[in-house]
């Protein structure tokens, strides 16, 4: 037994070290973006995200450390006549931009382009989506998640004119927390 004396302080050191205690982990939170249409014929489509409406977010808000994984999901149909790349932009605060130019001038590109041929419908794959996030956008997203959890996202096409539809859009976040 004498030989095992070292293990108690060693385990205390490991469990007690900041940020690596047992009570930490990666939680999956999804925020519904529902079904929406986006077109250059109408005002830009936006979603006002409020993560404080999600119980998991509220339960762990005080212990949030970062973002482990993120994806924009849904089934997207390019109903226009030209190939497009679908993009998601965001602003840190509540905004109500109406044109793609306003969005790209004042916002931060979060995700995309998700390329779709004319008339094509495609469900966004989780792996592919996770790889389409820009570093700058992800940094802003992390900042907002650690902040008030409220931000605005916009869906636009990267072509001069576009028309697409998103079915069952979801923003899936794997958030890291630690005591």
């Amino acid at each position, binding site marked *: 037994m004498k030989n095992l004396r070292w293990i108690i302080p060693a385990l205390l050191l490991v469990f007690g070290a900041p940020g690596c*205690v047992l009570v930490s*982990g*990666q939680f999956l939170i999804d925020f519904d973006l529902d079904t929406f249409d986006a077109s250059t014929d109408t005002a830009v489509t936006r979603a006002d995200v409020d993560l404080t409406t999600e119980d998991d977010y509220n339960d762990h808000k005080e212990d949030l450390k970062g973002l482990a994984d993120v994806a924009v999901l849904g089934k997207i149909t390019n109903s226009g006549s030209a190939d497009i790349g679908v993009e998601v932009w965001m602003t840190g605060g509540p905004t109500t931009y109406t044109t793609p130019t306003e969005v790209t001038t004042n916002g931060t590109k979060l995700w995309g382009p998700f390329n779709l041929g004319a008339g094509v419908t495609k469900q966004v794959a989780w792996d592919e989506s996770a790889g389409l996030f820009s570093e700058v956008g992800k940094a802003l997203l992390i900042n907002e998640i650690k902040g008030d959890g409220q931000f605005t996202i916009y869906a636009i096409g990267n072509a001069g004119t576009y028309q697409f539809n998103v079915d*069952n859009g979801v923003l899936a976040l*794997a958030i890291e927390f630690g005591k």
Partner: protein
Amino acid sequence: MKRALVFAILALGIGAGAARAPGAQIGIGPYAGYNAALIQQDTGNGAVFGVRAPIALAPMITIEPYYASSSLGDVDEEFGGLSYTRSGFDMKTFGATAIIGSILTEGFKFYPFAGIGSYQMERTGSEDIKETGFNFGFGFSVPAGAKIHVQARGGMDMIVTEDTSRKFANGTIGITYTLMSGE
């Protein structure tokens, strides 16, 4: 990369030192088992395979360089009525574990262990995680022949990722062949 190099040099140094030490015991052997992701909703569980080389430098302590590879399972979720799959991580680890006592001597042994290693986790669409981690747990060594021992272990790996960590509970079973008995 620097960290990986440091661990590699450390492992080689231990091995070279042990080979020259009078009475040193050296073994080698494969092992396999299962990694269970703890409190991680973005990756699944998976099998783990590896090789380790216990080096008993003195009767009371064994240092064991190791290498392990684990393919973690996918996560399947349904959002808005649509099914999605997120690929699990591929995890590669090497480092060294300290064991109290020698696991290469005769007789049944129960032992605690603790170690440190370099962990690399990668998957499609995610930045690679390359961090230092720790492992600890308990094991049994059971003789199964003149130079062979069966090793059964249960433990935990904890990879520190900035302000938080990724943790895995694991159980493994392996064999160790004694290359140098120290006699």
